[in-house]
């Protein structure tokens, strides 16, 4: 139902993220600073709350996007009701002790460290000393055969990348892993902090929750009993099990920083300046309805319709009614995330068909465009014609559509057209010309909007990229308390409570650590 005809329900605010993939160079600074901050500990050596994948490729963990196998996310049952793909409550309870849909450590990778001490302590020998790999799980020498970023820059792609679940359908047969047809882009990923988080709904212990104040999805470590239902339910495989504690851990969206009005660590340290953080206001009462949208290609619009225009006086009134503070409403109006998603409509969600209504969105990658001039109908002989139409890019539109629009190439193509028109227009402006406003109109932009969007995407000043209002001190008690629960009604069973059998941590389907030295020393290396 389009906005304007329905009354506004409970207004909530979420700190959300957009990433501009044209700028990602795959440097992994985000991954490393995240790891150093959050998972440089025993038990989560294999976990990267933030990782960067080379696409095409199977990703981390392997083929996580194949929900036929992993049963992540939501689906509609025969009566059109939203149910977890991992099954209803009964099925999940029955599989508490033998969940078949969990990735094993081989699907992630065996974390290793190196006996660096050899380099300073080795006795005289026939050869230079060398630090060799040892498993962080068994402590024994091991061979490195897979990793958190094994496919970087298409390494091993001829052998592995064909297994990318996004390479499906007839068009995929045209994708040849050949030198002259090479294409790749980098996809940074973290927890989506979904509006309709499957992990929260699947948790039998009520340990996973979505904060009312800012929408961040967290694990209550005191309540987690290690059932791992969240791991299965998350279609992005962004909940990890700490094999030392047996409990679930995940991206926290750096909530201590967010509460202080600071960007997440991955955003703060992003070399390419491709990340945006800002508020999105949404109607919490309409989330379930949106997630149950019958045609998965309508999910994008359905989710956008759940978002509320922070400039709309009715929305502002309803938000005040819901207790959202004034400075947050101001921040929502300045939100780069809302602008990219709803105003300019250039950002898209990752795999909307999972029906979790993810809240980390992406501006799809445009480059490389130059090679496609002729095939796209550009004028080969006109050296001024440097930007082509987008329908014959190196990166197949179908591939991007699989990732961002449930296969709808028109939508992803439309975004790329908009970005191309923007480039052409701004190039003309830079040359001191007026620019072709007709071309802008064709993609739904005015001259002023184009200049504003250019500032946001290309100039990308720090203060424009990150508009994060600090948490209110009067909410401090609530933020630290454990009463916070998922604020979102779902079609599934209540997330609360049921079936928590005792306090014992559960043994996992992974080897446990048999460490030689002190337990904490080797996380991430000895030095």
């Amino acid at each position, binding site marked *: 139902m389009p906005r304007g005809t329905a009354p506004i329900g409970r207004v909530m605010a979420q700190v959300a993220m957009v990433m501009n993939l044209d700028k990602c160079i795959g440097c992994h600074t985000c991954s490393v600073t995240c790891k150093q901050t959050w998972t440089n500990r025993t038990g989560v050596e294999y976990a990267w709350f933030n990782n960067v994948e080379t696409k095409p490729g199977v990703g981390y963990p392997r083929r996580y996007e194949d929900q036929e196998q992993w049963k992540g996310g939501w689906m509609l049952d025969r009566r059109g009701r939203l149910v977890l793909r991992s099954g209803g409550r009964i099925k999940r309870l029955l599989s508490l002790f033998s969940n078949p849909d969990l990735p094993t450590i081989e699907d992630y990778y065996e974390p290793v460290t190196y006996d660096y001490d050899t380099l300073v302590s080795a006795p005289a020998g026939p050869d230079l000393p060398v630090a060799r790999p040892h498993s962080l799980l068994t402590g024994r020498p091991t061979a490195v055969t897979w990793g958190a970023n094994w496919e970087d*820059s298409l390494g091993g792609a001829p052998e592995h990348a064909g297994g990318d679940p996004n390479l499906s359908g007839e068009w995929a047969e045209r994708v040849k892993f050949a*030198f002259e047809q090479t294409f790749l882009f980098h996809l940074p990923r973290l927890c989506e902090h979904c509006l309709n988080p499957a992990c929260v709904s699947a948790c039998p212990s009520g340990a996973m929750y979505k904060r009312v104040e800012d929408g961040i999805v967290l694990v209550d470590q005191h309540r987690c009993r290690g059932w791992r239902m969240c791991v299965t339910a998350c279609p992005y495989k962004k909940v990890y099990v700490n094999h030392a504690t047996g409990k679930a851990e995940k991206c926290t969206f750096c909530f201590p920083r967010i509460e202080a009005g600071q960007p997440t660590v991955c955003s703060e340290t992003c070399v390419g300046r491709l990340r945006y953080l800002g508020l999105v206001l949404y109607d919490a009462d309409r989330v379930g309805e949106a997630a149950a949208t019958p045609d998965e290609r309508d999910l994008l619009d359905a989710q956008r319709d759940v978002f509320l225009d922070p400039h709309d006086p009715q929305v502002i009134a309803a938000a005040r009614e819901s207790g959202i503070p004034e400075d947050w409403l101001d921040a929502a109006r300045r939100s780069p995330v809302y602008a990219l998603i709803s105003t300019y409509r250039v950002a898209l969600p990752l795999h909307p068909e999972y029906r979790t209504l993810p809240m980390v969105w992406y501006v799809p990658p445009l480059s490389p465009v130059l090679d496609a001039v002729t095939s796209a109908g550009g004028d080969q002989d006109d*050296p001024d014609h440097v930007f082509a139409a987008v329908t014959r890019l190196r990166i197949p539109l179908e591939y991007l559509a699989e990732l961002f629009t449930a296969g709808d190439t028109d939508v992803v193509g439309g975004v790329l057209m908009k970005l191309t028109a923007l480039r052409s227009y701004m190039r003309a402006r830079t040359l001191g010309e007026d620019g072709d406003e007709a071309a802008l109109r064709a993609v739904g932009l005015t001259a002023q909007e184009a200049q504003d969007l250019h500032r946001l995407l290309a100039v990308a000043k720090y203060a424009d990229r990150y508009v994060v209002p600090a948490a209110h001190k009067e909410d401090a008690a609530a933020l630290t308390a454990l009463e916070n629960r998922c604020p979102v009604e779902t079609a599934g069973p209540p997330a609360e409570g049921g079936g928590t059998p005792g306090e014992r941590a559960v043994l996992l389907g992974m080897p446990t650590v048999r460490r030689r030295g002190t337990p904490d020393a080797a996380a991430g290396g000895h030095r």
Partner: protein
Amino acid sequence: MVPNGSLGFRWGKAGQGHWNLDLGDTVPELSLLDSAEETVAVALPRFDEGGTEGGAVMVRGVPVRRVGGRLVTTVFDLLLAQYGVRRPGLPGDWPDSYEDASRPYTPAWQETVTSVPAEQAARIAREFARNAERTRGRSMIAMGAGTNHWFHSDTIYRAFLALTTMTGCQGVNGGGWAHYVGQEKVRPLTGFQHLAFAFDWQRPTRHMAGTSYWYLHTDQWRYEAFGPDELASPLGAGRFRGKAFADCLAQAVRLGWTPGHPGFNRNPLDLADEAAAQGRGVAEHIVDELTSGRLRFAAEDPDDPANFPRVLTVWRANLLGSSGKGNEYFLRHLLGTDAAVRSAETPEGERPEEVVWRPEAPEGKLDLLVSMDFRMTSTGLLSDVVLPAATWYEKDDLSSTDMHPFVHAFTPAIAPPWQARTDYDTFLALADRFSELAATHLGTRTDVLPVPLTHDTPDELAQPGGVVRDWRKGECEPVPGRTMPKLVVVERDYPAVADKLRAVGPLLETLGTTTKGVTVHPDREIEELRSRCGTVRDGAGTGRPSLATASDMCEAILALSGTSNGRLATEGFRELERQTGSTGLAALAAVREAERITFADTRTQPRAVMTSYEWSGSESGGRRYSPFVINVEHDKPWHTLTGRQHFFAAHDWISELGEQLPVYRPPLNALRHYGDEHLHEPGRAEVTVRYLTPHSKWSIHSEYQDNAYMLALSRGGPVIWMSTADAGKIGVRDNEWIEAYNRNGVVAARAVVSHRMPEGTVYMYHAKDRTVNVPTTEVSGRRGGGHNALTRLLVKPTHLAGGYAQFTYAFNYYGPTGNQRDEVTVIRRRDQRVEY
């Protein structure tokens, strides 16, 4: 007329105020095509065919006039002939069209070399030019190690420069030629140079070109498969006939073109003593000894034990695990340890004619190897002494780069752990002990340095025309500073070294500071430093500003540099105004004349540097640095013969290789020079491929490549990227162990198989040290090598050409490159059970 800005205006008194690019009413003719009296055919070099690297000859005509009995044409006309731009009425063999693939320099011809489709190359060229036209010069070539490390990188560079110059892009913000090789732009250059090299106490110092040094002292010169004559164009004069590369180097040192250290096969302190005993000047004595043959340049006999380097201190570098090209030769000859060199020495008959060939190549020239580092690299593992060093977070230091306009401070977050010391404290400790011992063993002595003819000095006029005249062969007299190196006497007070290190020396007042030909006088700054850093109370530095701590040193560097001291920047520009007669230069700095960036300022936050005479860009008014902006906007000459950027380069050695113009030269034909390197073991599939060593995204050189996170995000150890086709030929799958070997050494690594690699080329990241996950190899039975185990140094003689205008030696600017891109290797799958 001689146009303003030519070299003579820079160094002659009469030229004062005319060293500028103002041509007045003169309009130079670009081409003689419309005004020519006649045309002549010119023999031009081509390198895409021919029996040697020197290629063949093509004939294309130019329009000419006769001036003073000489045939004259323009460089532009020559350039168009070289590049095959056909114009009516000119004789010779020209391409029919862009589609003509049989004649050099057409788009279709380049496709046969590069595989880039002709139409695509032409379209990119048009777009580049059209964009430059519409943006008034904002087309840019950003290049990196991908082109820099080829043997003929200089011709590639010159092609870039020709392109960006012809399209009007040089000296334009957003245009021109941007390189990211060597980002070590020391913005506070003057302070750094004068204090780091002790120019405040004595001048000059023994600077050396690394490639020449290691080429001789690691004996790589003994393994050449061909000589410099192989590179000579058929149009050359045969100047390299019978010579070896080492002969070229020795001659270049002898003629004062390039540095060579040690200088002579006799202790320079003894040479000075001998001169004193004979009651004559040191220079006179040395010239006499050289001409009589009793004294030799060390470069002429590098394997004489008298000429060995004996003590090597590696400060925060990884010479033996990262940067040293020809690593196995370092191991064998410099260190005398196990090495995987598989090459045979140059056979008799092809050996140097001048440089002494000793039957047994020395192994283990060094007596002592000391390294200072905070990581245990291969260099540390091979050192006699490792001095643990503080990291960036444990010391005071300054940092700057050409990637941003700031100078900023390192400040200690923690004290150096365990026994580690800061670099500054380590050098002070060494100096203290050295001075203490020197009181007994050395005392005060007279030293003499052979110093090459130097850029940005009148030395540029020493050998006009770049004509080679060798005093050794009687072609001229041996005149220090003209036909041979300058011989500079320096008094050394060895026991005072530590005192001098701790104080700013007096030469800064008496001589001033000189950077790139501009001298300024930091008198006031010295006085300010006394109050900021304190005054030395005793010893050799009494009364001088103190440099007791690293922080004092940083303070002094900032105080003495134009980029961080507005008064000095303005004074330098005033001096440049005097030299050029241009006005408006001083104004570039005067807007910030009152500013001083102190070390405390940089500790508070990074500080944007000021526009200074030390560099060619302008940062005034918030602009970003772009090279040559001052030249273009203020008529300030480039530091060349004509004061302009050169399409045409004249020097005997450059002419010999046929490289007067920016020509295309292909990679060296390794297969022809080195032959089949396969081991040919029965049943073992092998493939010979080009071997490249690009930068890794997992490390900065060898730093961080051993970090567990970086390893977890890559493949956990050394890898070689190869194409699907090449992997198929040797039956190797992704992540399987392979071995790469050639005459230089052996590497064991895992294969990364990717369609991103073109067939026939592999790469191994620079610089995978051999300290992590490197097994022993099947080929050598020893630990596999790092990426430089498969490379070696090759010296291109034109990089040694000196003594003339822009072809004069400048520290860190001019000398032979460390190229390694033209290499090939054999690759095969190995037993998958590896041993460490």
